[in-house]
């Protein structure tokens, strides 16, 4: 238990540091790198929740694919657009009340509840076989819809390039 406690303490500290850095960097690329570190750390966190496959998929898909897609898109824009992203304090007045309240509520609710008695997980053996069985045999409709959701960006890409053709010819 002590190993787990120490590891989670270190991970929480790292999350705090990189969240603050991600919040206060002005250059979008640096901000992006902090968020990349957060995503990889979340993959490590999944290991402590006994979901190693999800951890690997988190690193492969989020850190390896989705964020690389974002980085490629960043290079399409001129650098001046990304350099000085100031915090817009005009909007701080009312609109940021909601997330702060949400966060404080989360913290308080856990604190008020006290030390949880049920911290011991009931069924700790994560079996990917069970999950894949559940996903593909019983919730197959979700996979069917997912196929359409994933093929939608491909069709949208063509629409994007059609516009490009028009502007290029004119």
């Amino acid at each position, binding site marked *: 238990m002590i190993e*787990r406690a120490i590891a989670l303490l270190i991970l929480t500290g790292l999350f705090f540091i990189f969240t603050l850095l991600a919040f206060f960097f002005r250059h979008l690329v640096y901000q992006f790198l902090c968020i990349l570190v957060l995503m990889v750390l979340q993959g490590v966190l999944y290991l402590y*929740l006994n979901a190693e496959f999800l951890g690997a998929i988190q690193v492969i898909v989020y850190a390896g694919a989705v964020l690389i897609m974002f980085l490629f898109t960043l290079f399409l824009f001129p650098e001046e657009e990304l350099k000085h992203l100031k915090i817009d304090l005009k909007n701080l007045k009312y609109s940021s009340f909601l997330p702060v309240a949400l966060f404080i509520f989360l913290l308080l609710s856990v604190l008020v509840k006290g030390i949880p008695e049920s911290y*011991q997980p009931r069924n700790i053996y994560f079996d990917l*076989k069970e999950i894949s*069985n559940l996903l593909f045999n019983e919730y197959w409709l979700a996979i069917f819809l997912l196929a359409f959701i994933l093929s939608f960006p491909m069709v949208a890409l063509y629409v994007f390039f059609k516009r*490009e053709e028009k502007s290029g010819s004119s």
Partner: protein
Amino acid sequence: MERPDVFVPSSYFPILIMLIVAFIFGVGGLIFGALVRPKYYYSLKLIPYECGNEPSGLPWQKITIRYFPIAILFAVFDVEVGLLYAWCYGFSEMKALGFFIMILFLIIILAGFFYDLKKGLLDWQRGI
């Protein structure tokens, strides 16, 4: 007595040690190099290389938009590969429905992919 049920992923611990050792190896080489290598910097040495000419313009000027569809298609296919791995792992307990829904999934994704191919998004020669 510790509770044995509290989960610690101990089999992944050597990977962390390997990561740290590899990092120390790289940084150690660099630090050792910094002790012995010469340092004579002058401003002409520090300008970016441009085949001997004076550097002109910013580097971020003419990035072709061709890389954009590749990145997006890559993300879509990577998600697909992730789901495929989950399917592969539970194959022997799969029912007929589970078998055919994956085939259908692949067919729908490939339909979108071939639509893009046919419209020439990945043809480098096609002028825009």
